[in-house]
């Protein structure tokens, strides 16, 4: 029997605002427990939430990017349940009137394009963290995360494989980071997803019973968790059993999903409009401001790089696909560096260094300023491109200034024609056989002579000058 998989994803993107959704406490990650908590986050008696408009701007930016409908009037509801890391005993979320409805995201699966429709994206506050393993006999709570703004992006059940789910997550990741809506750091939980997975016979109109896998926080785990779940469900159905609708957790250590305690989802959340908050109205002027500061998206960037700077299409695509790389590239170009040269080095040498260390460009020791110095030195002939690669490798390790490295290691390119002529004469004299062959029409040997000159000058000779002078010497 053949089965098909139906997947819908609920992605929680932590919005990169400075302060929380309803308080002025900082949202910075990694601080000492309970140091980023104000009266509101603590849920003290008498405190009231005040909406952070910045979170709305980011949510709207996302909505515009996926061509969704923006509800200029949206409202908040309370979702009631007891949990120690939920200080108020309810979570403030958008149930009835979310800020974003509809829209779609295009994904790419092995070169095939597919459109996944978005049901809605709504704002809500995150809960704190319960820590069960810090002390032997008690659980403790860290409320730093409580009240952090989340955008929950809900897809239609239109994803049909684990691979597609990963592509969807990657597309979302690229989008939210580009829009500066979320920092996209999955290891810190900034972007995490719940996957609703069900199986049905090919051709069936009705959906099968679904399970929800909670809080998956890496691309690899999404693929593994969903694939495990698909296999598990197929096995159940093929042996005549039924799938139970339930919430499951993915255990990456054992590579399996297993049910969460049933009590935790037997809740009636008793949603109702939060009486502490009036509906939030975004004016036309505010919408206009958000539109006017809308960032350039990867596809547009790529097109612009090609037409404005005449760089290779493949290079343009690689650079524009990453917010960090494109920023790095644009800073270089703005500082009057040669765009082609910059693109070439970013995609080539720098790209492989980044891959090697598995870091982002802004986490490396190469600063924009230093990169610019390097580019200038290539353009003004001080160093050759070949030497530049050596210098880059050194900067990568030490972060030292490019000019310093050039001076200290005597890497300045030899431009002096007299000096080069001396070397060339020496090369010609000691390779009489090859000179003869060359003169007899073996043109390919020209490269050999260039190589010899470079060898003699430890690679510092200006290649163009070498070319010109060699031609002159050999043809005389």
């Amino acid at each position, binding site marked *: 029997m053949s089965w098909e998989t139906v997947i819908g994803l609920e992605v929680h993107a932590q919005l990169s605002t400075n302060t929380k959704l309803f308080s002025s406490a900082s949202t910075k990650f990694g601080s000492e427990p309970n140091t980023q908590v104000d*009266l509101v986050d*603590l*849920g*003290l*008696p*008498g*405190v*009231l*939430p*005040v*909406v952070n408009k910045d979170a709305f701007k980011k949510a709207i930016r996302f909505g515009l990017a996926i061509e969704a409908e923006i509800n200029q009037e949206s409202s908040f509801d*309370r979702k*009631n349940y*007891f949990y*120690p890391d939920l*200080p*108020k*005993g*309810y979570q403030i979320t958008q149930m009835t009137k979310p800020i974003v409805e509809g829209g779609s995201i295009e994904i790419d699966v092995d070169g095939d394009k597919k459109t996944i429709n978005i049901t809605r994206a709504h704002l809500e506050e995150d809960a704190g963290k319960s820590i069960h393993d810090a002390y032997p006999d008690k659980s403790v*709570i860290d409320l730093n995360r409580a009240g952090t703004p989340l955008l929950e992006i809900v897809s239609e059940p239109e994803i049909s494989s684990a691979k597609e789910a990963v592509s969807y997550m990657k597309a979302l990741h690229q989008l939210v980071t580009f829009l500066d809506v979320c920092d996209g750091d999955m290891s810190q939980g900034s972007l995490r997803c719940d996957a609703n997975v069900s199986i049905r016979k090919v051709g069936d109109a009705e959906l099968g019973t679904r399970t929800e896998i909670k809080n998956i926080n890496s691309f690899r785990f999404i693929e593994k968790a969903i694939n495990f779940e698909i296999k598990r469900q197929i096995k159940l159905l093929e042996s005549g059993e039924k799938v139970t609708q339930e919430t499951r957790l993915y255990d990456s250590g054992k590579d399996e999903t297993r049910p969460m305690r049933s009590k935790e989802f037997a809740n*009636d959340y*008793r*949603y*109702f409009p939060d*009486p*502490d*908050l*009036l509906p939030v109205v975004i004016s036309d002027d505010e919408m206009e401001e958000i539109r006017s500061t809308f960032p350039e998206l990867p596809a547009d960037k790529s097109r612009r790089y090609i037409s404005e700077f005449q760089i290779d299409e493949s290079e343009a695509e690689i650079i524009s696909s990453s917010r960090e790389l494109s920023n790095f590239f644009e800073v270089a170009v703005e500082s009057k560096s040669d765009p082609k040269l910059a693109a070439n080095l970013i995609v080539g040498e720098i790209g492989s260094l980044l891959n090697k260390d598995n870091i982002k460009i802004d986490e490396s020791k190469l600063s924009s300023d230093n990169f610019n110095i390097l580019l200038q030195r290539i353009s003004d002939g001080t160093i050759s491109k070949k030497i530049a690669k050596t210098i880059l490798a050194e900067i990568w390790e030490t972060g030292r200034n490019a000019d310093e490295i050039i001076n200290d290691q005597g890497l300045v390119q030899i431009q002096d024609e007299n000096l080069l002529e001396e070397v060339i004469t020496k090369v010609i004299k000691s390779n009489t056989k090859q000179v003869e062959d060359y003169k007899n029409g073996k043109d390919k040997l020209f490269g050999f002579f260039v190589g010899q000159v470079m060898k003699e000058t430890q690679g510092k000779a200006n290649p163009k000058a070498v070319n010109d002078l060699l031609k002159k010497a050999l043809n005389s």
Partner: protein
Amino acid sequence: MSIRFKTLAELKELLEKKEISSYELVKETFKNISSSKTNSFITLDEEAALNKARDFDEGKVDGDLAGIPIAQKDLFCTKNLRTTCGSKILENFIPPYDATVVDNLLAAGSICVGKTNMDEFAMGSSNETSYYGTVRNPWDLERVPGGSSGGSAAAVSEGLVCAATGTDTGGSIRQPAALCGITGIKPTYGRASRWGMIAFASSLDQAGAFARNAEDCALLLNHICSHDSKDSTSISEERENYLDNINNNLKGKKIGIIKEFDISSLNKEVQDSFEKSKKIFEALGANFVEVSMPNIKLSVPTYYVIAPAECSSNLSRFDGVKYGYRAKDVDNLEELYIKSRSEGFGDEVKRRILIGTYVLSAGFYDAYYKKAQQSRRMIKNDFVDALSEVDVIMSPSSPSSAFKIGSKTEDPIEMYLEDLFTISSNLAGVPAMSIPHGFSDGLPIGLQLIGNYLEESKILNFAHQYQKNSDWHFKTPNLGESS
């Protein structure tokens, strides 16, 4: 010099003329409190109050209310001063911050002498649900002072303080003001900040004031009311000076009488007082018009769906985890919740949490909560229509005078009907006040004046003109030995 029963304006004058020092005033206040039999206060703050009084006497404090001792309802958070909300669950809660209303009143120079007793979480109309004991009515210690701001009302009525704050969710200022023979006002919803007010029903709760007369209330409101960016439901329009229009002429003004409030079913003294009060306003040149508010009969059932719904969620934060009462000897999280809340809350609070949880539950939401929201809108529209025809609406504040302690505790529904006349203005969000206007069974009763949105000035004007032509607000209880 006896300061008992002096008005705020009178005490201000005494201080200004240096006929009394603030220190003496505060000392005297605490002396009176210590001999009081009404149980009006839960927590006192004598040392801090005396220090502030000294500061005033040394010329370090100024402001409209400088040097005047007042009381705060124990529902307002007071920095470093225990705030219980009348509940065991907050028996040891010391807030790290001041409510905006408290902050405003302190900024005006007033001195907080302590926190007044109240029904637990403001749920009650008699002050009998307080964990800290029933407050007694100064006019008859066997009777209730009304609720939920019963401690504040009793303290002013007894002359312990000239002014106190209160909160009004369904009548919690107006009904106790009426039952204690003093003046109390609840401004428009959103006019005073709710920041630091421990929430009962967020869409109905509103801070206000008790004093001996309307003029003092106006002065207090000048400080209690403000726009506050910390409260999203706070009104941003600039606050008026409520004393500016207090002497306006009432000639030709229209007063609405609600057709659907059946005055004739009330006892004769209440009816007679109402008729007499009408005559006073008529003599001042005002005209009476009957207004029909067909949906006002839905007020009590509507209120008892919406208020419990909101309270069931608002009170979820009292879980024994972060602050407040935590049950001992529990084995797991669920037990911690169940025991802390079962032991920490009183019966009336539990009753309302249960009602609220029920009406919000899946399958019942549409039938109860949604319906109640709809009828609330209809009631609100009735007010908008009626108040487009008249300047103010007038009714009794409560169906009768103060009842005996214990006489209604067995029947919650009868207790809920205490707020029959007051609840609708909370549902609509309009300002309303109660002024003393006679006696029934030898106990004070109140007259309610309801105004249009943000027209606190107008009802204060009506009340002040009434008080210039009557003497009910001068009546004081006979305190026997303690007076």
